[in-house]
């Protein structure tokens, strides 16, 4: 397969995300401009100019009309997808680490870092109308986090609960009506970099710095599978059509310059969902992979790396013909 290399960022990619239909691919990096691309031919539709610092997280609502980004410049912004105009801006007290539209896109969540004497907090906001009053509105719910900070978050249960992944490897389920902890589980020993749903939102996969990715049942918050590697996992995604997961990772960015590319092992790794066995690798990046995403049709996937490139891979027949031996 010939990957499309999207070279629109000047710094490392932090997150990539497809929209619901998969025709657009959004990418964010530590430079201050999230980009949006046509996933089919790699044509850049535009850039969202307005952030002043690294963009840590992005999300797009399910109708692909609103785009949200949060960054290190203490702001969470809402954009119009079609024009790239900033429509809403929320100023926060500390950097925004993760942001996500709810399933219905009536609400959104963003979390802030524990920094500048501010505690880590989860904010739920109403995003139905984005106008001038948006930036002044009070959040629907604030959940201050006393313990380890939130590093990734997911909406669950048709917007009734939230699942947060923490720096110490803990996963907590929150009830939004009361703002209370429902359930918690500590299966990881280190920072959870990324959490992604499977197609029908019954299971989610976590990617952790402790060299593993784990599959959890969402309802009971039960550990189902563990995918072991020998390096930190930065991102993991579940194929919507096959029982495959793809993991992206690599050694820590700060160690990259002191070792050879070969030692870094910067390839995306395909594991069988059920048997937890690795069956394929795709090379390409020359830095750790920070974010992976499957196209909603399962026929291609994209990875964004520390090298600043997004690579869109159209999976070829050898992948689809491959039968896992068991």
């Amino acid at each position, binding site marked *: *397969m*010939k*990957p*499309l*290399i*999207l*070279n*629109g960022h000047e710094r490392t990619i932090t997150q990539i995300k497809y929209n619901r*239909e998969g*025709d*657009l691919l959004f990418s964010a990096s530590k430079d201050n*401009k999230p*980009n949006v*691309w*046509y996933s*089919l*031919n*790699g*044509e*850049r*539709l*535009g*850039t*969202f*100019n307005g952030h002043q610092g690294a963009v840590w997280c992005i999300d797009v609502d399910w*109708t*692909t009309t609103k785009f949200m980004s949060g960054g290190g410049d203490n702001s969470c912004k809402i954009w119009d997808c*079609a*024009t*790239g*105009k900033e429509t809403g801006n929320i100023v926060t007290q500390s950097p925004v680490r993760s942001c996500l539209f709810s399933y219905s896109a009536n609400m959104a969540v963003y979390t802030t870092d524990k920094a500048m004497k501010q505690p880590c907090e989860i904010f739920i906001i109403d995003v139905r109308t984005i106008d001038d009053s948006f930036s002044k509105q009070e959040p629907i719910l604030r959940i201050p986090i006393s313990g380890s900070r939130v590093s990734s978050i997911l909406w669950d249960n048709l917007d009734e609960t939230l699942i947060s992944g923490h720096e110490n490897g803990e996963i907590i389920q929150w009830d939004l009506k009361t703002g209370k902890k429902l359930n918690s589980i500590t299966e990881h020993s280190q920072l959870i970099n990324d959490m992604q749903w499977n197609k029908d939102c019954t299971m989610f996969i976590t990617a952790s710095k402790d060299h593993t990715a784990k599959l959890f049942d969402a309802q009971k918050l039960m550990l189902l599978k563990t995918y072991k590697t020998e390096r930190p996992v930065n991102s993991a995604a579940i194929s919507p059509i096959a029982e495959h997961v793809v993991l992206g990772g690599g050694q820590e960015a700060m160690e990259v310059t002191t070792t050879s590319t070969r030692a870094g092992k910067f*390839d995306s790794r*395909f594991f069988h969902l059920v048997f937890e*066995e*690795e*069956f*394929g*690798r*795709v*090379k*390409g990046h020359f830095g750790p992979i920070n974010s992976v995403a499957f196209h909603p049709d399962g026929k291609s996937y994209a990875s964004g790396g520390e090298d600043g490139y997004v*690579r869109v*891979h159209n*999976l*070829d027949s*050898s*992948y689809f013909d*491959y039968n896992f*031996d068991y």
Partner: protein
Amino acid sequence: MPATDYSPAMEEVKSSWADEVELEGGALPPPTEVVENGLKIVTEYKFNDDDKKVKIIRTYKIEKRIVSKSIALRKTWKKFGESAGDKFGPNPATTIVGEDVYMQFISSKEEDMKPEDEGIEKLKGLGDKNVVKCRTCGNDHWTTKCPWKDTVLADDKKPPMAAGAAGGSEPSKPGGSKYVPPSLRDGGAKRSDGANMGKRDDNYCAIRIANLSGSTTDIDLEELVKPFGPIHKLYLAKDKQTGLCKGFAYIHFKFKADAANAITLLNGYGYDHLILQVDWSKPVNNQ
């Protein structure tokens, strides 16, 4: 609704001398864009790092796809931000077609290693318990500690064991530091081996088929001799370089009767424009 896409398939072509002669004026000719039978060909000229004129031809395949309305609508969106000035189609500055990469499939080699280690660990964990096997009764204790040691069972089994032990200890005698080929090691065992060999020869009766044609393959040969009965081994002599048949083959039948049958029927049989010669396979160096 149809939406138009440009799939980039770029190629860079250095200008030929003919192009350069044409351009001797110095200025670069304007870029051209031709759309013909589903391909958009964009030709551009520019100076490369060595101040040489370079002609770049990019060929795009125009694809029409039927997509949902919302996707088609998004395809018509105007570019914004840094891409506002870009033309329709991918901008080569931001979109590059990468080199071919392949998914490297991993056979369970790595996984195989692990269970093996685990197996060893397990064995270590078990200790001597299951590793030890009594040569007399086959249970898991040392032979010397066998409860059947001085009983009939042991006596029955002893002679072969003793013989084996004697045979094994012979070459390790101090005098035997010189290399002795296995066939010459301790006479008694050899003779018994020889007897076994003879037996084996009787059991698997080898025949030699000669005057085979050069194009004969293993499969042909198998088909030829299969009808006579079960075959133990089949050897077709082939040239090392060409892989062609050298003209003869050995077939080891399981039963002597089958082999004899094969010889009578196949000797003189016309096979692939040649007449076969079939006989018992004779040992090369008869003692």
